[in-house]
């Protein structure tokens, strides 16, 4: 009967910390890190001029026609 609030509070306080830290960790290692790696990989050997020529050739650029 004693310490009803204390016991409940301890349980929920601990749970709250675990859940929020867990969510943060999950997001960091599930979303943030892979995204950073993907961007690094993409720009490592990126040639913008080559990309531009490819887009121009396909005809989607109005101010830079394919011919």
């Amino acid at each position: 009967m004693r310490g009803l609030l204390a016991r409940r509070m301890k349980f929920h306080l601990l749970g709250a910390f675990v859940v929020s830290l867990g969510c943060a960790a999950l997001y960091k290692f599930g979303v943030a890190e892979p995204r950073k790696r993907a961007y690094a990989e993409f720009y490592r050997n990126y040639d913008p001029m080559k990309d531009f020529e490819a887009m121009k050739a396909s005809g989607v650029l109005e101010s830079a026609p394919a011919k």
Partner: protein
Amino acid sequence: MLASRAFSLVGRRSISTSLCLRAHGHAGVVKAEDYTLPAYVDRRDVPLPEVAFVRDLSAQQRALKEKEKASWSALSVDEKVELYRMKFNETYAEMKKGTNEWKTILGGVLFFLGLTGVILIWQKHFMYGPIPQTFSEEWLSAQTKRMLDMRANPVEGVSAQWDFDKNEWKK
């Protein structure tokens, strides 16, 4: 007399009309309504409620209360339980016991979800007209080709899933 003067001071708004009417009949003292008196409540965070559970004791119970004033070792187990039940309605165990209500609720929710599904299927079949041409296969492939030509979302999106050298989706 005093009470009616008090009523006019307060302005009659804060006291219910029925109480006013009754006050004029008696000596000006209104019988306290049940909801104004301290109440018994079965709550886990209120271990000792303001009043006992049983308000009006029978003759037997009153005799038991008298016996309670003497030494408690003279009370039998049944008498102790009777005294407990006079003071409290449910034990903590009874208070905390769960019910089967969740089954009813879950069943009701699923039933209405199903009913909604039936309605939606009926609507699609009998009511709605054709969808726009922009959802046809030809349109969608032309649309995707244009997105790839523009290199839309080249890092993580659609253009990242297409192999531009082999002209096919990446495995």
